[in-house]
C-alpha cells in the first residue's frame, strides 16, 4: 500500500500547495474530473469538502476516489457532524481502500448554517477524538474498540486551526492538543489579517509546534468587495482588516486585485518560519487556482 504523497513532499521540505475542490450537487463525477483537468499540476493535493456549510453534496470520499482515478492526490475532509464513531471508522477504511491517504479531521459547520437546519447532528465525537481514533487505527491497527484490523489504513492526519477565533491565547494550546492527538498537518482558516497570523505563528514557534506539525496557511482569494465585506461581517471566526476591504473597494478589476492580494500573501507567508505550504480555498472559483499558483511562482509540480 503506497503512502501519502503529500506527506512525502512535506517531509522533503517542499513548500506545498493544496487546493480545495467543492464536490458537486450532482450524481455525476464529471465536474470533479473537469476540476482535476484544469488544476492538474497546479497543486500537490486537493481537499474534498464534506458537505460544506451543512448542505448535501457528493460525498467527499466518492469525490476523492474520482481524483485517485485521475491520478491526483486527494485530502478528504471528515466532519463529526454527520457520522458517529462507527461510521467514521468504516468510512476511513473504505476511503483507504480506494486509495485515499490524507484525512482532515474537523467538526464541520453546524447544521443551522445549511439548508436542512432541522437535521439532527451527531457530534458523537469531536475532531480531537477523531484524530485519536484514526491514529489508533493506523498505528495500532485497531479500531477504537480495540478490535484488530486485518489491514491497517495508511493515513496522513490533518486538522484545522483557526488563528482568528477566540479565546486567542488558547488557540495555540488547542493546536498543541490536536498535535498530541495525532495531527500531522494543519490547514488554517483563511488568512487576511497577516499580523494576527504572524503573532499566532510566533506562539506556535514558542511551543516548537512547527517541528511537530506541517502548517499550511489557508488563503481564500477575494472575488469582489461584497465578498470581502461578507467575510468580515458574516463569517464567524474570520478577521478581514480594513485596508484589504478598501483595496477591494477601490479596485477597477476586483478579481485581478483579489488575485494580487492572494499572491502578495503567499510571498509573505513563505517567509514565515514554520509555514510549510498554502491551502487555497477558491470556493466556487476553482478555475482561478492555476493563475494564482502561476503568479506566485509555485508552478513546478
Amino acid at each position, binding site marked *: 500500500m503506497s503512502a501519502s504523497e503529500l506527506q512525502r513532499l512535506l517531509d522533503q521540505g517542499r513548500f506545498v500547495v493544496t487546493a480545495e475542490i467543492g464536490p458537486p450537487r450532482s450524481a455525476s463525477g464529471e465536474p470533479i474530473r473537469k476540476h482535476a483537468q484544469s488544476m492538474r499540476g497546479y497543486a500537490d493535493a486537493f481537499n474534498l469538502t464534506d458537505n460544506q456549510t451543512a448542505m448535501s453534496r457528493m460525498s467527499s470520499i466518492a469525490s476523492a476516489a474520482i481524483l485517485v482515478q485521475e491520478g491526483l492526490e486527494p485530502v478528504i475532509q471528515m466532519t463529526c457532524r454527520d457520522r458517529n464513531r462507527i461510521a467514521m471508522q468504516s468510512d476511513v477504511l473504505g476511503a483507504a481502500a480506494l486509495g485515499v491517504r490524507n484525512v482532515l479531521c474537523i*467538526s464541520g459547520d*453546524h447544521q443551522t448554517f445549511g439548508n436542512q437546519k432541522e437535521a439532527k447532528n451527531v457530534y458523537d465525537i469531536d475532531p480531537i477524538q477523531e484524530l485519536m481514533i484514526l491514529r489508533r487505527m493506523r498505528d495500532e491497527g485497531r479500531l477504537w474498540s480495540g478490535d484488530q484490523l486485518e489491514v491497517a489504513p495508511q493515513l496522513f492526519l490533518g486538522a484545522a486551526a483557526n488563528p482568528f477565533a477566540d479565546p486567542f491565547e488558547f488557540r495555540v494550546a488547542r493546536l498543541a492538543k490536536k498535535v*498530541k*492527538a495525532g495531527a500531522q498537518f494543519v490547514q488554517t482558516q483563511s488568512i487576511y489579517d497577516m499580523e494576527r497570523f504572524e503573532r499566532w505563528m510566533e506562539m506556535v514557534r514558542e511551543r516548537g509546534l512547527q517541528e511537530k506539525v506541517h502548517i499550511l496557511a489557508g488563503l481564500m482569494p477575494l472575488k469582489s468587495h461584497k465578498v470581502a465585506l461578507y467575510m468580515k461581517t458574516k463569517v464567524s471566526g474570520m478577521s478581514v482588516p480594513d485596508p484589504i476591504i478598501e483595496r477591494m473597494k477601490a479596485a477597477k478589476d476586483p478579481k485581478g486585485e483579489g488575485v494580487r492580494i492572494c499572491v502578495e500573501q503567499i510571498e509573505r507567508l513563505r517567509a514565515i518560519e514554520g509555514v510549510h505550504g498554502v491551502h487555497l480555498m477558491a470556493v466556487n472559483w476553482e478555475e482561478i487556482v492555476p493563475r494564482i499558483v502561476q503568479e506566485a511562482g509555485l508552478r513546478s509540480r
Partner: protein
Amino acid sequence: MIIGAQKPLKEICSMLEGHQNILVAGCRSCVAICLAGGEKEVGVLAESLRLHSDLHGKGWRIDEVTVERQCEKEWVRGVSEKVGDKDAVLSIACGVGAQTIQALYPQVRVMPGLNTSNMGAPEEQGVFQEKCGGCGDCVLHLTGGICPIVRCAKSLLNGPCGGSQNGKCEISPDVPCAWDEIYQSLKRLGRLDMLDEPLPPKNWLPSRSGGPRKIVNDQALFTIEEKALRGKRE
C-alpha cells in the same frame, strides 16, 4: 428543573376535538416554577378552553386540578375523583407527568398541553436556560463547572471550535460559547492545565443513547421480604 412551554392554544383546541369531559391538569413542581403549568396557567388555559367551547358550541365541560408532583403515582392517584368521569386529560405538566396520568388512568386519553424542553434554570424572571444534558456521566469537574454537552452546540469535549468569536457561538451571537466560558472559568481557577490533555471519546451509554435509563437505589428499595410483609398498599 424541567423546563417546558405551553403549546399554542389552537393546537390544543384541535387536539381536544371530539372530547367532552376534559380535565386540565397542572403540577406544582418544575413547570409551575418555569411559569408554564402551575395552577395559574391551568386557570388561564381552562378559561380559554371554556371560552372556545362556548363560542363554538362545543359543549365542553372543563375541570381543573393541580397536583403537587404529577410525576408521582401517589399524588396522581389522589385526584382519581377528578379524573374518573373525564374522557380526556390535558396535562400541562412535563412529559413525565402526562405519562404518569396515562399509566394510572389507562381508560382516559391524555393530551400534552406542554412541550417539555430541557433541564435548566431561570436566568432571570421569565428566562429559562438549558444547563444540563443528563448525559449520565458528568464532566463538570473537568470543564470549570460548565456543561459542554448541552451548552456547546456541537457537544464538543475538546473545544472551542473555530467558530468561537468574542465569547460567542457560531450559531448565533446571542449564544455564549460554552468553551470560551470553560476556558475563562478554568483560567480564573488557575487550572488551564486541565485543558492540555485531550478528553477521549465519551461513553454515551449512560446517556439517552443507551436506551431508557433506570436508576435503582438499593438503600431505598424495598426487598422482596419487606414487600411481602408490607402487603399491597396503593
